């Protein structure tokens, strides 16, 4: 496949997806999302008061798909007059590594009209790694309001946490080495659904090689 990623994703492209090994295929990924949707509804005794906030770019797409699945599980009732509110939360301005590299462009933050005060906010991201993105998301969220509770749903937990952060819903735990890279591909962004585990980060390895 082509390794060219859409312009919207400005994270550095690391490694080479063409030599990466698939860990989840499209069907696996779909089943994982369906299970997470059920778990969210189960844990929260329904979908009332739940707000899904995706972290751009792929987290937003995942949040939208979780929302569709939850709508399929939980019928629209008096308590839940509409489907689960879905939004996006850009954490760029709250990152702790901003000054370690060139400036990053911002992604949209869209908070559903009901806000987050008193809601159960489920943060959705594609890969949980160091936990620093989620730390930034928690800070960003506290500037937007005071949710009743915050939960975390990730498609892949690859380990190597650097902060005391733990996901509530996990699509798949993938033990990785620090030199490996995890690529999450999603239909609406990358043209297909898959999770790939790549070998050592070629781009970074090359960069480190030249500076050494």
């Amino acid at each position: 496949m082509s390794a060219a990623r859409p312009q919207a994703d400005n994270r550095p492209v690391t490694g080479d997806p063409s030599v990466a090994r698939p860990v989840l295929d499209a069907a696996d990924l779909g089943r994982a999302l369906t299970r997470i949707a059920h778990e969210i509804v189960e844990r929260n005794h329904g979908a009332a008061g739940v707000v899904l906030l995706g972290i751009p770019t792929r987290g937003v797409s995942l949040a939208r798909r979780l929302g569709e699945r939850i709508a399929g599980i939980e019928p629209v009732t008096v308590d839940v007059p509409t489907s689960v509110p879905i939004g996006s939360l850009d954490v760029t301005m709250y990152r702790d590594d901003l000054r370690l590299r060139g400036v990053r462009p911002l992604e949209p933050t869209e908070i559903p009209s009901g806000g987050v005060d008193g809601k159960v906010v489920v943060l959705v991201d594609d890969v949980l790694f160091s936990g620093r993105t989620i730390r930034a998301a928690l800070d960003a969220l506290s500037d937007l309001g005071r949710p009743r509770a915050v939960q975390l749903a990730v498609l892949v937990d690859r380990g190597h946490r650097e902060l005391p952060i733990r996901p509530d819903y996990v699509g798949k735990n993938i033990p990785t080495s620090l030199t490996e890279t995890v690529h999450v591909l999603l239909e609406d962004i990358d043209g297909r659904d898959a999770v790939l585990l790549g070998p050592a980060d070629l781009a970074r390895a090359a960069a480190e090689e030249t500076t050494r």
Partner: protein
Amino acid sequence: MTTTPIVRTLPRHLLSAADLNRDEALLVLDTAEELARLADRPIKKLPTLRGRTVVNLFFEDSTRTRTSFEVAAKRLSADVINFSAKGSSVSKGESLKDTALTLEAMGADAVVCRHGASGAPHRLANWIRGSVINAGDGTHEHPTQALLDTFTMRNRLGRIEELRVVIVGDVLHSRVARSNVLLLSTLGAEVTLVAPPTLLPVGVDTWPCSVSYELDAVLPKSDVVMMLRVQRERMYGGFFPTTREYSRRYGLDARRMATLPDDAIVMHPGPMNRGVEIAAEVADSVRSTIVEQVANGVSVRMAVLYLLLGGAFIETVEVAA
């Protein structure tokens, strides 16, 4: 195949609207659009520039630009030091360079400079390590004003490309006009300057725009009319016979505004001389974006500060790696 990271960044200083290419200008506008949403939130503050110091170095009077930069820096949690020539050592005869070196020694990460002399921020940029942002130098440039003007146009009209923009009035003394012409042409708008021949600068024929002396002929074919202030404080001589005659020929009144296309907007960088270049009823009409321009100024300046100071300078990264 290995793809390289998409790194989009700005030059280190913002001295001229011509410093920005199309991608960089759009990056500022897109960033400003995200930051504009902050105004609707309960907490209008981001932690991004915590611990960074922004110095507002103003050798000329200013209300909106200085406060706008101050609000922008504070919303990004930067420390702001306001320095105006009045009441400082400048009145004791300190030179620009010595002032700059003093600020440098105090650890300024960015210096926002307004100066009566064209080119002062350029000189400043050679003396200090931090970023220099030109907040208006003499009759030369005012790049953040051009950015907020284009931002306002894009907000109201949805695009910049192929917009027909008319800039009317004292082009000779206007840094706003020059920066707007440069930025708008970079972004693909068609700019026409309208002014009496005495208020057009020498060499205007080399600017990327057309020139007309007849306001009435141009108005029906324009999407944006930007009125410029008649800058009497910079005029040493007779540029037009009387204010009344100027106003009659180049002022925007309700009758002239009625000849504009339906969705055209009227802009003014402020401060206005009501009754001279713009009639009060025009300034307060629904077409007028004058108040919006001020609000947008904060978002655009936040975007500029973020893009200049938010990340590491690329050369710093290479040293650290």
